[in-house]
């Protein structure tokens, strides 16, 4: 039994396994299958200052080893979350992190200010990388100066651990990560989904209502590993790795490339109990490799 306790951005996690926003609802949907308190934490569905209906149906295309979604941040807004949803989660003995998105800087700042006041929200993950909203979203995460600006403004009002979620849909993810670090982020999480498209050849139409969407699942893992590896060499703040983690071995690969923590996303759809298997699998791997502490494998890739 190695020590899996992980410290990141001022947070203490029982183990380095979180769940990714948008794949885990508000956690309670999984309580028939797993003990939520065994998780290092979970990140709730992407939340925006104002309620959003999201995009029209169809929002899903299955692709080889993955899926493309075009949900578009359907949610009831920060105030509703704070008043109605968070109180049900606040007593859980794990980190319930809020993913905050927006379509303008003012919305990000106001949402962050409201969440800063909620004592039982331990951290926020600032989503500057959603490919499925027309205004803002990924736009903030594709230009270093815009990423810097939004993170700096949020940093001014948000005094707890601030994680910033990055998009892979850029020429240099390292540049964005550096800008975010300079603006005061405590950690970066990467990658959000890969901008993608699916076509129905017989009907000669796009499958998604929005034509393009975000690819996730096993198919994106090689891209995500590359991004984590590049960012690990570009910034000093800790990295949360995600993108196509389907099992414990995948999680270990991210940690070897430099991720201190991982998020499990789309795999929750295929096996709602996968996070427990990943925690056990990491533990077993560390034992097998004679490691006493999880930190020993972070960035330990031999090159």
């Amino acid at each position, binding site marked *: 039994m190695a020590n899996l306790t992980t410290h990141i951005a001022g947070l203490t996690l029982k183990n380095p396994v979180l769940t990714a926003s948008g794949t885990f*609802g508000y956690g309670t949907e*999984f309580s028939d299958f797993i003990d939520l308190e065994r998780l290092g934490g979970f990140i709730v569905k992407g939340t925006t200052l104002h309620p959003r209906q999201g995009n029209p*149906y169809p929002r*899903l295309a*299955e692709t080889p080893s993955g*899926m493309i979604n075009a*949900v578009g941040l359907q949610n009831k807004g920060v105030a509703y979350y704070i008043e109605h949803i968070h109180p049900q989660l606040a007593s859980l003995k794990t980190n319930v992190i809020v993913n905050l998105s927006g379509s303008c800087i003012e919305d990000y700042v106001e949402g962050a200010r409201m969440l800063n006041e909620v004592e039982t929200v331990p951290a926020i993950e600032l989503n500057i990388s959603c490919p499925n909203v027309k205004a803002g979203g990924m736009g903030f995460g594709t230009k270093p100066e815009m990423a810097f600006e939004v993170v700096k403004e949020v940093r001014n009002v948000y005094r707890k651990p601030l994680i910033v979620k990055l998009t892979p849909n850029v020429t240099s993810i390292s540049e964005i990560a550096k800008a975010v670090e300079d603006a005061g982020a405590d950690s970066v999480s990467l990658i959000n989904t890969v901008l993608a498209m699916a076509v129905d050849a017989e009907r000669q139409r796009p499958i998604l209502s929005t034509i393009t969407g975000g690819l996730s699942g096993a198919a994106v893992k090689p891209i995500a590993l590359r991004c984590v590896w590049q960012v690990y060499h570009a910034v000093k703040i800790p990295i949360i790795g995600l993108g196509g983690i389907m099992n414990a071995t995948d999680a270990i690969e991210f940690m070897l490339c430099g991720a201190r923590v991982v998020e499990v996303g789309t795999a929750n759809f*295929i*096996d709602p109990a996968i996070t427990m298997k990943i925690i056990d699998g990491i533990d077993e791997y560390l034992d097998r490799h004679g490691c006493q502490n999880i930190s020993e494998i972070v960035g330990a890739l031999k090159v």
Partner: protein
Amino acid sequence: MKKYITDFMVVANEQLSDRLFVLRLTPVDGSRIATCHAGQFAELRVDDEPQVFLRRPISIHRVDYDANELWLLIQRAGHGTSKLSGLRARDLLNIIYPLGNGFTIDEQSQEMHYLLIGGGVGVAPLLETGYQLKLSGAQVSFLLGGRSCAEIAQVAQFCKVGNVYITTEDGSSIDGLDCQRGFVTQHSVLKEGRFDAIRVCGPLPMMKAVAHLVSSWEQNKRPHFCEVSLENKMACGLGVCLCCVEDTKDGHKCVCSDGPVFDIHDLKW
């Protein structure tokens, strides 16, 4: 209702036609099958098929608690269902169930006559629904439609539960049953005032046609008079991915967790 992830073993795979088959399954570990409500569904894991990434949502066709068997009626349509159609006795299948909210069984059901309307593979949830309604004391009739009578699955099973009425587009018929040419909405049994509640599952145009037909009926003013089961494309089956939404009068609702069954009053049809 509590949900389970369970490994099932195939007891039998009965091929009904070139596209339709019934999987009869029992839990590998011998545990009792969970209680399922009429109209709920299961998410089936399809392994070793590169084109298939997500689970396949399939209606619960029948739960035989005496034999401890779960029956799934499936239509071979793509890579996932093709793989499932090749399962043989003793093969294993990982299933998450029971999912979603099923058909309403009214409190006064023992005084009621239900008409269950199905088309194509959409007849699947109606068998268990018929059994549960009958158990509650209700009178049950089925109206089943297809292109031809050969395409209407499990007629003998439905006949064990209630009266069966048939429509076929090609006019083909089944001995001893009231078969009429046309669509289900054209069958003479479907008349205002004859049934106390209607439950529908089938192709979208069929469900919409039934909904439009009954929308002007006096009985339709009652809640749950007519319910339909939708099958929007979904990923998780648990109400977390928000992919399978239906645009209802109350905003986007997840077919997997708010449905799959909806009162037609709530839909924007």
